[in-house]
């Protein structure tokens, strides 16, 4: 009987740990939002975060969406051929990119690049007592480290996604015109005619939420990193995994809110 008790106890412990983690993340989120609206504001740190998260993520987001747009065009063309609907390629590529693939893929790529980097940087700062040093220098770590990164990611990921959407549609266009026999002007017209403003703006709202999630998870896991190299490594992994899962979960929830009939 004892193994049953141990088994149930282990499940109970896991559930309690999970709930405690959710509670800690909720408190951290509340604190971040609280500091977001109260001075002092560190504009230099915000500018640096904007540059790092936005500008330096452009190549990875651009390449990801370019190839995805091209692959999407090929898939839709091949699938559409089964019921003589090859002509829908431009409109489906455009809608698919701006509503779903652009925000999600850009969010996941930024999660891999930025959440990992933030967690590693802040985790290292924690284990080398740099965060304690900030406190002794009368600087609140949440205001100085978390707020600039979270605000920058929330504002700049939508811009990244907008650029990614355009590049993704361009990828579809290049494949459509060069390999699938589409007329260039007709492809562009089909893309523009079928896209509605809400298609684009819903994707950008998702992107802002994903940006918030990425930076928040990076900061949370970094600032709660364990000791030593192993602790920082674990924090980095947890930041990427939790940001990715939360992005996919938030994407489902937002899609349901925006588009459920």
């Amino acid at each position: 009987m004892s193994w049953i008790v141990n088994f149930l106890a282990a499940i109970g412990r896991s559930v309690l740990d999970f709930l405690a983690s959710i509670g800690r993340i909720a408190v951290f989120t509340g604190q971040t939002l609280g500091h977001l609206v109260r001075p002092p504001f560190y504009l230099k740190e915000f500018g640096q975060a904007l540059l790092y998260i936005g500008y330096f993520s452009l190549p990875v987001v651009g390449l990801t969406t370019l190839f995805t747009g091209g692959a999407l065009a090929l898939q839709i063309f091949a699938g559409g051929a089964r019921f003589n609907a090859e002509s829908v390629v431009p409109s489906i590529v455009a809608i698919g990119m701006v509503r779903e693939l652009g925000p999600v893929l850009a969010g996941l790529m930024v999660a891999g690049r930025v959440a990992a980097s933030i967690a590693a940087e802040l985790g290292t700062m924690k284990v080398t007592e740099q965060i304690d040093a900030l406190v002794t220098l009368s600087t609140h770590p949440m205001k100085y480290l978390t707020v600039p990164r979270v605000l920058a990611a929330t504002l700049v990921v939508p811009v990244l996604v907008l650029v990614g959407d355009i590049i993704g549609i361009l990828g579809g266009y290049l494949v459509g015109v060069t390999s699938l026999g589409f007329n260039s002007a007709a492809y562009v017209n089909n893309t523009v005619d079928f896209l509605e403003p809400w298609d684009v703006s819903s994707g950008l709202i998702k992107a802002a939420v994903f940006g918030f999630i990425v930076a928040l998870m990076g900061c949370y896991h970094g600032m709660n990193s364990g000791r030593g190299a192993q602790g920082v490594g674990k924090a980095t992994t947890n930041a990427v995994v939790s940001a990715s899962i939360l992005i996919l979960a938030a994407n489902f929830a937002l899609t349901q809110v925006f588009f459920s009939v």
Partner: protein
Amino acid sequence: MSTMIDMQGVHKSFGDNHVLRGVDLAIAQGESMVIIGGSGTGKSVLLKSVLGLVAPDRGQIKVDGQTAQSGDRDAFLARFGMLFQGGALFDSMPVWQNVAFRLLRGALKRPRDEARTIAIEKLRRVGLKGRVADLYPAELSGGMQKRVGLARAIASEPEIIFFDEPTTGLDPIMAGVINELIREIVVEMGATAMTITHDMSSVRAIADRVAMIHDGVIQWSGPVADMDNSGDAALDQFINARATDPIEAVR
């Protein structure tokens, strides 16, 4: 002399590990107090409790008559400077910005040129040349990083300075240099100093008074001159580096 830091019955536990079990300690204004004790005896926890980096479970800590955890936190912290064990320099910014960190933002903010001039002056004070100012911490040796940390600790001319293991990881000559610098700066500034260390040469060079922490309480405290004839077996064992009783080597 009036009391600058007053700790009464300070307790702190981490799970089942009762690190501090009622520490009572008073440090007078302008005094250099050195706290010694074995590894894991709670010296750093005690120091961080004063700064509010660690919240004590019980007990009271007063700084200049005011409870440490209450009141304007920024004004409270502005009275302190701290040299961390590993330096804790911000590796994303050059040395001068590390030293002038407090002078570039917040209540003590100065024009950038003035902050840089003060930083270079403080670097010179700790024996570093002006050209070091534009290097990054990763480009410095351990001894230089300690000096930069020391320059940062004194940059805003604080009333109270904490030194956490100031000579750990340094060769004996550099340790001697750092000890001398600390003593000179503390006397020159008239600051109250609290140092934690294992290094007995540091104790003799820096301390006015010494307190030994053992089993979560202050085992012995008194003037540094009385340390060798204290009659306390644990203190004798510590300062003479004996592996046997009363402190167990395996903890």
